[in-house]
């Protein structure tokens, strides 16, 4: 049984940053991921990372933009920490080797991004997430003597001891099918979000809400789950992301009548209003018949000089060419809002601690909450790094004071029996893929940009039926080596459990705030709903509680852009 001080589950930016911090703090550390670390979905964060590093900018301004962007649901203590520590984090990354864009003087240069009152987004062309992920991985390779990497291992459960403390996890070696227990004094979940609950989504196929569901199953509360970000510019055809960097560089949005419609919705910030505002504006145009016949809006990047596009937006030139047959330097590309990000997740404090002792969470899997009702573009990379590091440091420090832990063999045997039973199911039920497809379409239809009681009730009914059907869903692959079929079955369970909490949160919040827009409750209602919705598992049933929003210095105001 591999035993460590700190076990990190997930090797995207949050996980890698946590590992870097824990190793440097002297802890024996393992990082475990179901894909090779550089395949992680942090790759997809194209546009950049926010920090008030420029002398004319201030962390307070960054924090206020974030608070306002969150529609005042973000916890201001956490937001202050994130924005204060951002400049230093950028510099550390730069020193590690990230090839950040430079200005003419050779200093770090910025680009504009949505919802921000200053150009404070640092970037590497439009491969910022990829560049950060690969450079952090370089640093993990450099630390290979002090860090155990378990690449292509799939976590099936978190393990608690009799006192309710998280003491490790059980994982399957995808290459061999072997199940193994990983004991650890502290466990950091950093396994990302669950966009695959929706279809279409900008999220990768691996984003199946694993960590959210694993934490929920061992009793950790989930917070702000109703807050699902729809990104304003996703490719009509297949939901691929077109970075906000395009609008940051000056691209405009047009409806089918050729109107630059953002004038009506956000006269000051126009295309660079916050994402919930732009997505709602687009969806309104489409719903009221001013979209293109295929239900889309035109994003016109030809406004940006061609040389600049080729240098700074290279990736979306490729995506336009390869996936939409469009040369974005010469013609507009058709887009629409699409599921992109979970603001909610496993509830944590400012050190990444969840209410389950020994269990931490950081990155999209977690909800600190710095994003509240709506995340600003280029704040997610920042969130992963700041809270990844803080979790890693804190977990290492805690582990140093604790005795060695172990997990009884019986626990592993139970898990093996459960997985064997999935593989052995007879072909009486539905296919895993069919249930996943129905889930994605249901969520995208009823739990999207605009929501109402009727649609949400319908969604809840479908999700609960699918949960029943999942119990008998069958798979084809009986093998041990790379049995991706059995992993998909376990992922489906993760997704269904998570989807239920999303729908419940959306039903519960009877107001409109951030990404949650209820057509039956179209106003924000601070008197009743300036609070988080926490959902935890009580026996087999979800239980809803509320927790207060932390306000330090910014009282809620009306939100216009």
């Amino acid at each position, binding site marked *: 049984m591999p035993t460590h001080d700190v076990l990190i589950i997930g090797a995207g930016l949050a996980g890698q940053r946590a590992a870097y911090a824990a190793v440097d703090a002297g802890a024996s550390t393992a990082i475990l991921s179901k*894909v*090779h670390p*550089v*395949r*992680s*979905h942090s*790759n*997809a964060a194209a546009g950049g990372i926010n920090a008030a590093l420029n002398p004319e900018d201030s962390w307070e301004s960054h924090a206020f933009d974030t608070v306002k962007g969150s529609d005042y649901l973000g916890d201001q203590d956490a937001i202050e920490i994130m924005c204060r520590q951002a400049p230093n984090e950028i510099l550390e990354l730069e*020193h*590690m*080797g990230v*090839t*950040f*864009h430079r200005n003419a*003087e*050779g*200093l770090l240069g910025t680009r504009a991004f949505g919802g921000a009152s200053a150009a404070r987004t640092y970037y*590497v*062309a439009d*491969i910022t997430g*990829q*560049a950060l992920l690969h450079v952090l991985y*370089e*640093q993990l*390779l450099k630390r290979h003597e002090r860090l155990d990497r378990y*690449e292509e291992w799939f976590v099936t459960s978190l393990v608690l001891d009799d006192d309710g403390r998280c003491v490790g996890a059980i994982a399957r070696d995808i290459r061999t099918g072997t199940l193994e227990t990983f004991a650890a004094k502290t466990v950091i979940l950093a396994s990302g979000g669950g966009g695959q609950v929706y279809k279409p989504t900008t999220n*990768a*196929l691996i984003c199946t809400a694993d960590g959210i569901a694993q934490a929920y199953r061992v009793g950790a509360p989930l917070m702000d789950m109703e807050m699902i970000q729809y990104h304003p510019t996703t490719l009509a055809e297949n939901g691929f*992301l077109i970075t906000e960097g395009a609008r940051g560089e000056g691209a405009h949005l*047009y409806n*089918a009548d*050729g109107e630059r419609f953002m004038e009506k919705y956000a006269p000051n910030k126009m295309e660079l209003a916050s994402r919930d505002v732009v997505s709602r504006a687009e969806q309104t145009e489409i719903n009221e018949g001013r979209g*293109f016949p295929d239900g889309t809006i*035109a994003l*016109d990047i030809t*406004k940006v*000089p*061609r*040389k600049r596009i*080729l240098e700074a937006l*290279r990736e979306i030139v*490729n*995506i336009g060419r*390869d996936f939409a*047959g469009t040369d974005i*330097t*010469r*013609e*507009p590309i058709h887009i629409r809002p699409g599921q992109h990000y979970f603001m909610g997740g496993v509830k944590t404090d400012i050190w990444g601690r969840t209410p389950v002792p020994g269990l931490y969470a950081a990155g999209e899997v977690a909800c600190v909450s710095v994003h509240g009702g709506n995340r600003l573009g280029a704040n997610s990379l920042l969130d992963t790094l700041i809270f990844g590091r803080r979790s890693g440091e804190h977990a290492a420090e805690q582990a140093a004071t604790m005795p060695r832990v172990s997990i009884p063999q019986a626990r592993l045997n139970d898990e093996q029996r459960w997985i064997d039973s999935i593989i052995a199911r007879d072909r009486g039920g539905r*296919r895993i*893929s*069919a249930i996943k497809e129905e889930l994605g379409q249901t969520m995208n239809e009823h739990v999207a940009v605009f929501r109402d009681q009727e649609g949400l009730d319908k969604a809840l009914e479908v999700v609960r039926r699918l949960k029943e059907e999942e119990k008998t869903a069958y*798979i084809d*692959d009986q*093998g041990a*080596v*790379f049995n*991706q*079929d059995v992993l*998909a079955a376990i992922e489906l369970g993760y997704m269904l459990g998570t989807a239920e909490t999303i729908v419940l949160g959306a039903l519960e919040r009877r107001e409109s705030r951030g990404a949650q827009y209820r057509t039956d409750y179209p106003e924000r209602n601070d008197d009743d709903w300036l609070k988080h919705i926490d959902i935890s598992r009580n026996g087999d049933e979800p239980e809803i509680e509320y927790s207060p929003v932390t306000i330090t210095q910014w009282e809620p105001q009306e939100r216009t852009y």
Partner: protein
Amino acid sequence: MPEFTLKVRRYLPESGEAPYWQDYTVDLEGHRSVLEGILTAKADQDGTIGIRCSCRAAICGSCGVRINGRAALACKTHLEEALESSQADGEIVVEPMGNMPVLKDLIVDMDAVHWKKIQRVTPWLLPEGPPPEREYVVPHEAMVDVTQSMACIQCGACVSDCLSMEVDPDFIGPAALAKAYRFVGDPRDGQHEERLKDLSEDPAGVYDCTHCFNCIEACPKGVAPMNQIMRLRRMAGDDYEIVDRNNGHRHEKAFTSLVRDNGILWEAELLPRSYGGDSFFGKFAPAAGLELADSLPSIVRALMRRKVTPMGALRPHKIPKEDRAQVERIYERVEGRDERLELNLYITGFEDEDEPAGESESQAAAESQGSSA
């Protein structure tokens, strides 16, 4: 919707059976990807098909496979495109990548080859001294320049199709050497010379590349690994004057100087000049003699098969005067530059002025109106 047939190379290690082919027919539009084809088959027909995949948008680098014999990302290759390039009677042939052991179906062991080679090039920044208080001040162009290597997604397509690696499995290879350029081209790294020396001295290093261009063709991200290898060579030989044990740099110099002098390669002079340099006495360099003796069997074979005549080998080839003048002009132009001009994916030499201002805008507006009608 059109039907596409995917002929997939299957290998199930637990079955004890040899690899075999299996056909899957899917109903999908032609601009859908080969990956979507495979995933559709996997979802509806056969969940046992093994393929790594994640982002579906050519950024995670998981789904490198061989399609109709050439390495590619399955997610970035359209079905109709793949069908066109197929030589297998209307079937799209999908196999695992080459140069790496197969674990199951389309999944290869990248750790055993690709990642091992990446680790070979000390793949992390080695700055000199403590970091500055703020950021390192470096030229804008330098960061844009290394962005081409940073664009690598470690998919392994170039490794799969590298011919040198097929012959010499020890070759560090295109992906790892492109990664090495990412540090050698980075002004913040303090070990440029040490890195270059290391990569030049290694018999499996930069001079093991045979310029076959396969990696450039295979790379789905425009990293052009071979170009990065050539830049490592130029920096090692020209900038740092590293005289490598493999004699690679001088050999390359001999090529270019022979073409400059004769307008075309003169094979007989290549060895002496590679060892003895560009002078008459160079012909008597002992190392050249040894190498020549080593090559005697090949020379004799070539003579016997009449690939060359003794006189033809000993005298330079003749080419028309005007052609030779043109070759000379190319040399004058390239060598007359103050600096080496290095273009890449991000530095295209393309200027906005090529296009009259405003044209693209009005054209785009017209098109957008057209599609709205």
